[in-house]
């Protein structure tokens, strides 16, 4: 699976997203599911899936699907 596919699966699973949500254009607090609690779950799930550890700034910066994608690329996760 590509990074994007894996990340999409992590988002859907961690945020318990309903079908039909435009995952790739999601932003923090745009939807009820991605609140502060959802964010903590999402961060933990991303760390698990990609074997990375996000620092304080990265957790706070992770405000959209696209940012998460770029962040993981920057951390050297294979496409």
């Amino acid at each position: 699976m590509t990074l994007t596919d894996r990340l999409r699966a992590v988002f859907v699973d961690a945020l318990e997203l309903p079908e039909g949500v435009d995952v790739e254009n999601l932003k923090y607090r745009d939807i009820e599911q991605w609140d502060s609690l959802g964010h903590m779950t999402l961060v933990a799930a991303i760390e698990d899936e990609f074997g990375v550890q996000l620092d304080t700034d990265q957790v706070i910066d992770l405000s959209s699907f696209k940012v998460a994608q770029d962040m993981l690329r920057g951390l050297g996760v294979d496409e």
Partner: protein
Amino acid sequence: MRLVHPAARLLDAASGVTLGGPDLAARLARVGEAYAALPPGVLFARSGLGVEAVLRYVGAVEAGRPVALLDPALDPAVLADFVHRFEPAAVLGLAEGGAGADPGALPKGYREVTDAVLGPVWVREHAPAARPHPDLAVLLATSGSTGDPKFVRLSRDAVLANATAIGTALALDPTEVAPTNLPLYYSFGMSVVNSHLAAGATVLVVDGGVLAREFWQATAEHGATSLAGVPHHYEMLHRIRWTPARYPTLRTLTQAGGRLRDELILAFHEKISAVGGRFHVMWGCTEAGPRMSTLPAEALPERVGSVGPALAGGAFTVLDPDGVETSAPEVVGELVYRGPNVMMGYAERAADLARGDDQGGVLRTGDLGRLDADGYVWLRGRLSRFGKVFGVRVNLHDIEEMVRDHGPVVAVSGPDRVVIFAEGVDAATAGQIAGRLAERLRTHRTGFDVRPVERLPQLSNGKIDYRALEAQV
């Protein structure tokens, strides 16, 4: 006496605009004039974290117009029920709220108008029969974790007295800059705004909370001096290894809204002390408008676990198991608070809004605890929070304390056993928790049903949603 000190300022993080002095007074006066054009009665204010919402709230208090602060994400059916039961003169802030916030359909007997000052409003066509009591200033919905939703009635004097007493306990002065991390409709969030405005300080109006980049940008850019949070916020900050050292102006951390683990109290106390700041554990409830006690920062680490002595003007006593009230130390019983900030009473329907003071300045807190020789409060959980394990009554709060080192846990009463929801543990740890509890309470481990959960459900104010958990048992 007014809520807003002449030096007070509102700083809008989104636009960078500061309102203070005559500008702020003029904006509040305009809001007051707009209210004067509405029918008489209480106002409902759906309130997010924006300057307009703060102005509508503060403008109501300054104009002597009772106002109910409401969560914009309140379910439309619940809002409709509130409108039906309390017959507000108007529902303000129809455009407030982000994700999932919808006021619902226009209630019968109201028309929707767009006011030049107030924005979109539902206005009542006919004045309600019951006029609110002249002392009434603020209505806050009680938290959903206990009982049916109803309003706490706070008088103007109670709101002002509490704002001043908090200012004294925290030594607030006009140099303080407080960012809005907590919702306005939550009593703790309201008290942050009130106490800073009364002290002539700055309220930095910023939306998003401690996991949002905008929040920390605003904190850095505008030199925020304090951060107010509930245990959930400190748990999150701990998990993301946040440190106050990055924000040199930040010198006060306050925590209320439930019990934070001692380990984290001490960790944050150390972090903020290292940069010359202080950590305050506080205790309150909506019924006390809300603050009742504050632990002086110097009392840490020695008195970790205490919520401190009563605020200036307040006093605690304990109802012992025989129902005898005492101020003697070391007696465990229900804590009773007396002070000028105690609510007038509850309101379940419109007629109750006309009621005067039902409480006489006395509040039975429903919390178990004791006072030490210096009058510091040590809480032992909710009075009603008991469960039974094989017929033996156990204090659910004590059970949570016994296994709190595993992370956030909640114990609820099940059929002759206690169900423990433990956040982020695996099955093996869940088994260990049950084993430890059985050992401590000298009973069989099957009396404890430990269920791992990814996260504990929360109410919109960040408190644990006990009812949602009880519903799963």
